């Protein structure tokens, strides 16, 4: 084995990624063209599996239904670094890259993540690199980061195919993360959110629970005998009012977000609605903040049912935990990203009121979730498109691969330092117990 310096290793990683840049960007664009929402990413999963095969990377598939895990082994033993790429798309009507049948669309740039995850893989496969590293790299293609289609996923849960409704919590539960010691991924963003930086680091995110709500009334002829009916839509309306009436009790720094939708608002206008369904998230900066807000939401939902003399079923699913990005891992990443994008172009980000299941990962291991400002438009909007693939795939891949080189060279001493400094908020079993404690089903009313 030829002994290479860390700089030499990084240089050959970067050269290899550059050499295969077009191929990697094509992979991302291929996924962009075939968007699939979470736990439905069959084609995307198969495609990523094909790429692992082409790269001779051994992998498991079917983790959390559609997830994959490929592993690159270093020259000697040491810690395992996980690199995530999210498989799923959103559903956004009118997105330029939306699937014409399903309206699925990569309006959050996850397709680029598969590109940058595979960039890490090809970079580390450059001659002489892996044998100089102590430890392993897990390439984690995870399903279902977007917490959508709650009814569909909750049905999968009831059927026993899932326990949690997000990909990374399922990865943690399945044991796929048991041998992973620290984790990273790179998300795309627009420059507004990175304060005009090329790469943003250190952001925090809201955690959240999700609720599936069903108001049950009594159907009756809406014209002929409304007095014999119980209007479930009115119950939902009152519940929404009850939620809004409490907004000023949410503290600013808790960044609570409650944003329900009505997924079924009645069946026929001539019949008093007897089955009205809603979904909502309750998000907040800390676990205490969003679980306390969720109690206020629950009582408003009950009040809706009470007011009309109906019933409400509230199914709470555990959602995502808030993220805490590991400071040491962040600084190692920052040192590697800066030379790639230039001094002053890696910026510290603030709190974000969206949520990600990287938050869950961050509860049990050191994790980072930087953003590459490669997109334009509003995230989750019909105008969110990745413009700068060079940055989103190639540069983002290099920054992570170089960070991994720092972590796993020198007998993995930096990785071990990150791990030893990190106090996990929860162990895996505590995390699973916490997630299960949030799950509940309640029926309230007359």
């Amino acid at each position, binding site marked *: 084995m030829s002994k290479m310096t860390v700089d030499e290793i990084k240089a050959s990683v970067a050269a290899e990624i550059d050499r295969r840049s077009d191929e990697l960007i094509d992979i991302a664009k291929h996924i962009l063209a075939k968007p699939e929402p979470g736990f439905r990413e069959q084609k995307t999963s198969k495609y990523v599996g094909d790429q692992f095969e082409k790269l001779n990377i051994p992998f498991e598939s079917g983790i959390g239904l559609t997830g994959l895990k490929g592993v690159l082994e270093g020259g000697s033993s040491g810690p395992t670094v996980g690199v995530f790429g999210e498989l799923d798309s959103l559903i956004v009507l009118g997105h330029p890259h939306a699937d014409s049948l399903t309206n699925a669309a990569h309006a959050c740039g996850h397709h680029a993540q598969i590109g940058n995850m595979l960039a890490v893989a090809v970079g580390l496969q450059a001659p002489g690199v892996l044998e100089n590293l102590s430890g392993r790299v897990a390439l984690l293609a995870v399903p279902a980061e977007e917490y959508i289609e709650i009814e569909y996923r909750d049905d999968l849960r009831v059927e026993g195919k899932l326990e949690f409704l997000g990909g990374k919590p399922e990865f943690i539960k399945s044991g796929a993360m048991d041998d992973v010691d620290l984790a990273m991924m790179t998300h795309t963003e627009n420059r507004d959110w990175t304060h005009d930086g090329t790469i943003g680091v250190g952001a925090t995110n809201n955690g959240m629970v999700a609720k599936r709500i069903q108001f049950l009334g009594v159907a009756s002829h809406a014209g002929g005998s*409304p*007095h014999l*009916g119980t*209007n479930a839509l*009115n119950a939902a*309306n*009152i*519940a929404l*009012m*009850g*939620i809004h*009436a*409490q907004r*000023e*009790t*949410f*503290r600013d720094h808790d960044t609570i977000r409650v944003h329900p939708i009505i997924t079924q608002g009645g069946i026929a206008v001539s019949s008093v609605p007897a089955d009205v369904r809603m979904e909502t998230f309750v998000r907040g900066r800390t676990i205490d903040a969003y679980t306390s807000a969720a109690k*206020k939401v629950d*009582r*408003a939902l*009950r*009040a*809706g049912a*009470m*007011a*009309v*003399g109906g019933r409400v079923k509230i199914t709470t699913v555990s959602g995502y935990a808030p993220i805490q990005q590991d400071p040491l891992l962040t600084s190692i990443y920052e040192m590697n990203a800066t030379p790639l994008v230039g001094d002053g172009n890696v910026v510290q980000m603030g709190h974000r009121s969206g949520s990600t299941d990287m938050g869950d990962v961050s509860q049990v291991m050191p994790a980072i979730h930087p953003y590459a400002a490669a997109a334009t438009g509003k995230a989750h909007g019909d105008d969110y498109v990745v413009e700068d693939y060079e940055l989103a795939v190639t540069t983002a891949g290099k920054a992570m691969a170089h960070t991994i080189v720092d972590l796993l060279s020198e007998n993995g001493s930096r990785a071990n330092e990150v791990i030893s400094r990190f106090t996990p908020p929860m162990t895996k079993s505590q995390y699973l117990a916490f997630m299960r404690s949030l799950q509940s089903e309640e029926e309230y009313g007359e």
Partner: protein
Amino acid sequence: MMLGIDELKTAAIAAIDQRRGWLIEIAESVLRNPEVGFQEAKTSRLVADAFSQIGIPYRDQIAITGIKAVLSGGRPGPAVAILGEMDALRVPDHRYSDPSTGVAHACGHNCQIGMILGVALGLSVPEVRDALDGQVIFMAVPAEEFIDIEERLRIRENGQIGLLSGKQEFIRLGEFDEVDIAMMVHTSATSEHSKFSLGGTSNGHLVKQVEFIGKSAHSGSAPHQGVNALQAAMVGMNALNTQRETFAESDTVRLHGIITDGGRSVNSVPSSVRYEGRVRGATSESIADAASKMDRCMKAGALALGANVKITTIPGYFPIKNDRWLGELFKESATRLVGRSSVSELGNSVGRGGSTDMGDLSQIMPVIHPYASGFTGLGHGRDYMVRDYDQALIYPAKALAMTVIDLLTAQAEKAKEVLVKSDRLMTKARYLALQESIFSEDLYESL
């Protein structure tokens, strides 16, 4: 020599016409001294003086301000009560509102006082009085408008009243015990074509005193530490609105209320908010149904915000049942005065959305509560004003006097016929027990 029935009526009418100016003066004097229910001290004094002048013995201070004057006929027989309401409303922008209190006669009760004195004048003509087989009992009753509930509950606590309206109290105090039949005429702003309208029904109602109890906190710096009672009330009131389509039209349900205390200072999270609600309906069942919906909506408001709510239920009025036979007699007299085409009759199912404690009386004896026009504007509104005193006061007095003459002359044959034909809906004891059973207090806790 005995006068014939038509001559008696002519004599009574002449006596009323003779004092027309005085009667209108009385009505105007009441108009200019408006007082709310159970506080009609000046009005009560004025009525007492008027009975003294006419020479009919009376008792006063019944149910605080009420007056009862008894005119005995030549021989014993049934007792017919003629009622006039003394109280005013609170309508500050009414032309004749008391500038210091905002109280105004926006419901025309002042003319009723003129009417009962007119009837008293007409029937006090010695020949008329002697021809009556029975008694005519004039009652100036307090507090027909069911308002100022908190104040009335307070004087109820003091033992000054037991029920919250004038006629209810008169019933409770036994003042109607010897009365067999009761009549009054209310003013209205109906058209020329309907100078008198008879029959119809009214809504019954009950009252809800609702207090939302939250937790105060600084509205700017610590709203998260408070529980907003005003928001609870808002959710409750909005929830109430969603129930409206569940009421059958035939029940003429009305759910309405006012916020009597909506918070004390804008920079403190309101911790006590009061709502006074009214539940009206055509039947006891529809009132009970609507009342339970009001309750659950108010509780839902509290539940949504994590507040408490205290709901005090106070019995209000029963729907009125106008006696058909008595109505027919009155109609004859009214027709003689204004012509057949100017007297209209509402079916007994035709409801007026409002409520009156004459409804309570109608549960225990035959009553009529016809309307006489002569006003313009909206009842209870700022512009409810007398247009024609003849129509609003003089004709009704005459019609009532003529009806009494019909009822009580000739051995009170007609009065006895009414009593035989009319069925009583309930006894006084049953009525009082029902009213008592509605008084309740319910505390729902979610704080």
